């Protein structure tokens, strides 16, 4: 784990990364020549059409997938060493809660696996359920919760062991727009409060514009980066209304241009 003096070091350093799947129909280049450096405390969105490899990139960072070429370091370690050091929290597309565990039990799961004591576990569960405003539901079971609440439980679970890096794979993709808006605002507050580094995969341009400090635009076949856009929105005190600022419109326009450029490439 890098200490605060190494804060200038990138949290993630990716150079010349590529991944080719060998399928029955021949090789498929899922990712090609990816270069990306993520600084501590950044909120990076990966946006692009289906099949552009954004989820695959996230999974490589998480050591759930192995690259076939290039280099990658996470927290100054190889992805697998970083995983063994429990250096990231992962939020999946679906909540992936254990149905036989209560809300509190689900949040406590990583803490149990990592061997924290009972008192410490209870205190962490309380703290992070408070953070996602679900303390009153601690005894409920997943099926008794709405989809949005389930996803908030899974976010509390990813935060509970206090990783400095949060990897989120379209966490709000399956939710209705109203719920998604509310969770976006909650996530912004959380990011401001905890100063974590977040890598966030999304399909949605407004979501990427609202949340990100940098937006990485990707295109498919082969999956590659077509543009990296530094956000011009103020970092603090963003709200849903920030999406109506002229800077937000400009950002969204540039994302759209990037997606279009990537799209025309394949036709």
């Amino acid at each position, binding site marked *: 784990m890098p200490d605060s003096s190494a804060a200038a070091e990138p949290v993630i350093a990716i150079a010349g990364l590529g991944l080719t799947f060998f399928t029955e129909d021949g090789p498929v280049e899922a990712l090609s020549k990816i270069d990306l450096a993520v600084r501590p405390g950044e909120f990076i969105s990966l946006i692009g059409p289906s099949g552009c490899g954004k989820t695959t990139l996230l999974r490589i960072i998480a050591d759930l997938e192995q690259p076939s070429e290039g280099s990658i370091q996470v927290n100054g370690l190889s992805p697998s060493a970083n995983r063994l050091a429990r250096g990231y929290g992962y939020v999946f597309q679906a909540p*992936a809660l254990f149905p036989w565990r*209560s809300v509190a039990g689900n949040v406590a*799961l990583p803490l149990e696996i990592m061997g924290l004591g009972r008192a410490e576990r209870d205190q962490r569960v309380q703290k992070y359920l408070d953070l996602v405003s679900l303390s009153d539901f601690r005894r409920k079971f997943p099926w008794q919760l709405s989809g949005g609440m389930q996803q908030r439980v899974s976010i509390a679970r990813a935060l509970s062991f206090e990783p400095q890096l949060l990897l989120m794979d379209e966490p709000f993709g399956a939710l209705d727009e109203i719920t998604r808006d509310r969770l976006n605002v909650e996530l912004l507050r959380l990011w401001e409060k905890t100063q974590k580094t977040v890598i966030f995969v999304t399909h949605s341009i407004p979501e990427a514009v609202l949340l990100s400090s940098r937006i990485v635009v990707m295109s498919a076949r082969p999956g590659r980066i077509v543009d990296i856009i530094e956000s011009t929105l103020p970092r603090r005190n963003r709200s849903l209304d920030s999406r109506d600022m002229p800077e937000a419109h400009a950002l969204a326009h540039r994302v759209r241009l990037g997606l279009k450029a990537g799209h025309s490439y394949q036709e």
Partner: protein
Amino acid sequence: MRNRIFPLATIVLVLILAWYGLALILNHDQAVRLAGDAQPSWWDLVKMSWSLDRPLLPVPHQIAAELWRSVFTIAPWAKRSLLFHAGVTAGSTLVGFCLGILLGIVLAAGIVHVRTLDRALMPWIITSQTVPILAIAPMIVVVLGNLGLTGLLPKAVISMYLGFFPVAIGMVKGLRSPDPLQLDLMRSYSAGRWTVFWKLRLRASIPFLFASLKVAIAISLVGAIVGELPTGASAGLGARLLSGSYYGQTVQIWAALFMAAFLGLFLLLLIAAIERLYFSRAGGRA
């Protein structure tokens, strides 16, 4: 409730009527022989067919009377009590059932975790159930007897031989039931195999386990009864069936058969109750 009882009662009534009719046909010759030269009326013949000492097919009220006599009029620890025999069979059933659960889970865990075991064990597990249990039960008894193991254990082993199968099959399916996201989640925590097994796979397989247990308990009972036939056992429902057929005591055979059915039903309800208790604690949903 009412429209659930009515169809059931109708079926039971039809079955009982058919039973009395069938008994009339099957027992007719014996009744005629018994009557000899005394020219009985047809109604007397009917009554005789339904109350023979050793009928080809005893009628329900004869079986009910025998059940009543051998269950309620005799102390349950006496050897003539049907409850005593049911208790003996229940004992070896439960021991065999528990051994079967253990063996089934161990085999399934091995199959799920070791790829070669999947290929090596699965065909043998399936083959084991194609061998008629009646053929190998005496061999198991003889082999174990030579090793000095007699009494409950050989019967329990035969019971286990049948009971492990549905558990193994169900648990292979159940241990593989966690979805890829849940497995990825555990991997992101760098959880070891044992932790994944204990905290995810085993818990996810419980609904499959209970489905398997309901099949396993029934065939474990069959195994225990079959196990009592070649042992020359003097106690147990199997022994009761055997002695009944030696002496042509058909009423006793049928009473023992009904007792076995009641025992099976009781054990099944017991498992269903445990299942309900478990799921009411683990979220109220399977």
